[in-house]
């Protein structure tokens, strides 16, 4: 399993760079991962990322865009503004979670 150092922490990642250990994630790491993909975190970004983290710990899988909007209460349109082009994967990357597996 590859390792990388980000925001001063050693973390385990998969071959693409998605973190693989839920408990290694911190908000500092989230901020640093976001800046790697050109996203500056705002309160709205954090709302989405925190929902992803909570939902993952309850459901055991990364929520899809649809679920972030219906269960997390953040409109789809806004998710595309906050995390342009590929919101589901970008959110998962910043939240230190695997890519979502659901189709919708």
């Amino acid at each position, binding site marked *: 399993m*590859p*390792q*990388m*150092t*980000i925001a*001063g922490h*050693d973390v385990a*990642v998969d071959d*693409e*760079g*998605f973190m693989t250990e839920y408990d290694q994630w911190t908000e500092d790491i989230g901020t*640093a991962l976001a800046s*790697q*993909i*050109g996203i500056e975190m705002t309160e709205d970004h954090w709302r989405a990322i925190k929902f992803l983290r909570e939902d993952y710990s309850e459901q055991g899988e990364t929520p899809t*865009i*649809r*679920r972030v909007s*219906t269960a997390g209460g953040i*409109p*789809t*349109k806004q998710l*595309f503004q906050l995390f*342009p*082009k*590929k*919101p*589901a*994967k*970008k959110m998962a*990357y910043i939240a230190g979670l695997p890519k979502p597996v659901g*189709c*919708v």
Partner: protein
Amino acid sequence: MTNPDDTPVMVPDFGDADTDRKICFICSKGTLDMAYPALIMANGALGEGVETHLFFTFWGMDMISKKTQDKLKFTILGNPATHMPQGLGGVPGMTAMATRMMKKQIADLDVPEVPEFLSLLHDMGAQLWACKMSVDMMDLTREDLIDEVEDIINVSDFIELSDGAQIIFV
């Protein structure tokens, strides 16, 4: 110990550089089960940042007509993949029951119904187009179609707008 200098941060390829991929779905069916394939694939394409168009033609007009879009039905008639005796399909009330069952299965997966799905796709940036000949044939006007439809276009318009796109006929 890992030396920060030796481990560059790995960043997944989010494909931000490729912006020219484009997908067009042709939606030609008006049954509940055949409405979904394009909607689900379009949703996936938009989530991957791909420019996505949906062109509605023939029976597919039922998906974007205000009067019909929430009344699409599923029938076991002529569909042996339901594994039901085909004779059952003609029994009164069977289509309504099959439709209810399918809608429940879809809702259980938290997949939206057709009208909400189309509006969701529109919010995600999909462009919806209606076929001119179908509009004329079915005596429809722009007002009969949902607001999310960009325009009524003819085949040559569609061929033009789908230039360089991957086209999927459903």
